[in-house]
C-alpha cells in the first residue's frame, strides 16, 4: 500500500535495509551501467592509483540505496528527484568463493520535508558502510497521491 501525503509528517521513519555487496555485484553493475573503470574490479589497478583497494561505483551505492525509497513509495516512477554527494568510497574486499559479502551498506530513511503545494515528500537517506557515512545529502523527492 503506497503512502498518502496526509498521513506523513516530517521526521517520520520510513525504514531501513542492509545491502550486501560482493565483487561479483560490482562486475554486474559495471556491465549494466557501462562504467568499466578498473578501480571497481581490479585490485592492482586500484592500489596503483592510491586507493586502499577495489571500491564500489558511487552510482552502485546511490542506485541501490534508493530502493528503500521506491519500495516505500510503491512506484519507482514516483521518485521525481534524487541527489547525493559521494563522501567516502565503499571498499569491497575479495570474498569470491565464500558466502561472505565484501562490504555491507546500511541505508535508513526519514521524511525530511513535506511540500503540500507540490504534493511531494523529501526522503533523507543515511547511508553508512564500515561505520562511515558514504553518501551525504542523499535526498529523494517522492510525488505522492
Amino acid at each position, binding site marked *: 500500500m503506497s503512502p498518502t501525503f496526509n498521513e506523513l509528517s516530517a521526521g517520520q521513519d520510513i525504514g531501513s535495509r542492509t*545491502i550486501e555487496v560482493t565483487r561479483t*555485484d560490482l562486475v*554486474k*553493475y559495471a*556491465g*549494466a*551501467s*557501462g*562504467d568499466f*573503470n578498473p578501480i571497481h574490479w581490479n585490485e592492482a589497478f586500484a592500489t596503483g*592509483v592510491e586507493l586502499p583497494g577495489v571500491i564500489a561505483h*558511487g*552510482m*552502485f551505492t*546511490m*542506485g*541501490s540505496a*534508493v*530502493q528503500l*525509497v*521506491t*519500495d516505500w513509495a*510503491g*512506484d*519507482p*516512477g514516483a*521518485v*521525481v*528527484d*534524487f*541527489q*547525493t*554527494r*559521494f563522501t567516502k568510497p565503499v571498499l569491497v574486499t575479495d570474498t569470491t568463493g565464500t558466502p561472505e559479502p565484501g562490504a555491507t551498506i546500511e541505508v535508513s530513511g526519514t521524511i525530511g520535508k513535506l511540500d503540500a503545494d507540490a504534493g511531494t515528500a523529501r526522503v533523507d537517506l543515511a547511508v553508512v558502510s564500515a561505520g562511515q557515512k558514504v553518501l551525504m545529502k542523499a535526498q*529523494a523527492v517522492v510525488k505522492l497521491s
Partner: protein
Amino acid sequence: MTINPDLQGRSYPAAEVYDVGREKIREFARAVKATNPAHFDVDAATALGHTDLVAPPTFAIIIAQRADAQLIEDPDAGIDFSRVVHADQRFTHHRPIVAGDRLVAELHVDGVRAMGGGAMITTRSEIFALGSGDAREPVTTTTSSILVRGEGQ
C-alpha cells in the same frame, strides 16, 4: 596535464540515440538490487499507469555518462580519466523513463573550478525522448560534478 579553463559554458549536442529496452531495464534493476515488479513485469508497470517497464531512478546515468564521455575523451579538455572521482550526482525526472523511449542527451559544461592541482567540473545532461517528426519531450535532467585529481591529490 591541466584542465582547459575555457571548457565552462561549452555544450556538446545530442549525438547517438539511446533505445531503452526492456531487458536493459531488467538488467540494470537487478544490478542495483531493485525488486519492484514495475521494472520486470509489463502488467505490473501498466497497473501503475506506465506505458511499459519503468526504469530505476538512476538508470539515466547510462545516458548521462555516455554524454560525459564526449567531454572526457575530448583531447582539448585535458582530463585524465584515471584521476577522475565522482563528487556528486543529481537526477531530476520530468517524467519516468520507460521501455521504448528513444533518448538523446545534450551535454552542458556548467562549471570548471581549480582545486589544488586539479579541478572540479560540473556537467548537466538534458535528456529528451524523441517523438514523431521533430518532437522532443524533456525526460530527465542530470547534473554531476567530477573531481579530476591533480598530482599527489
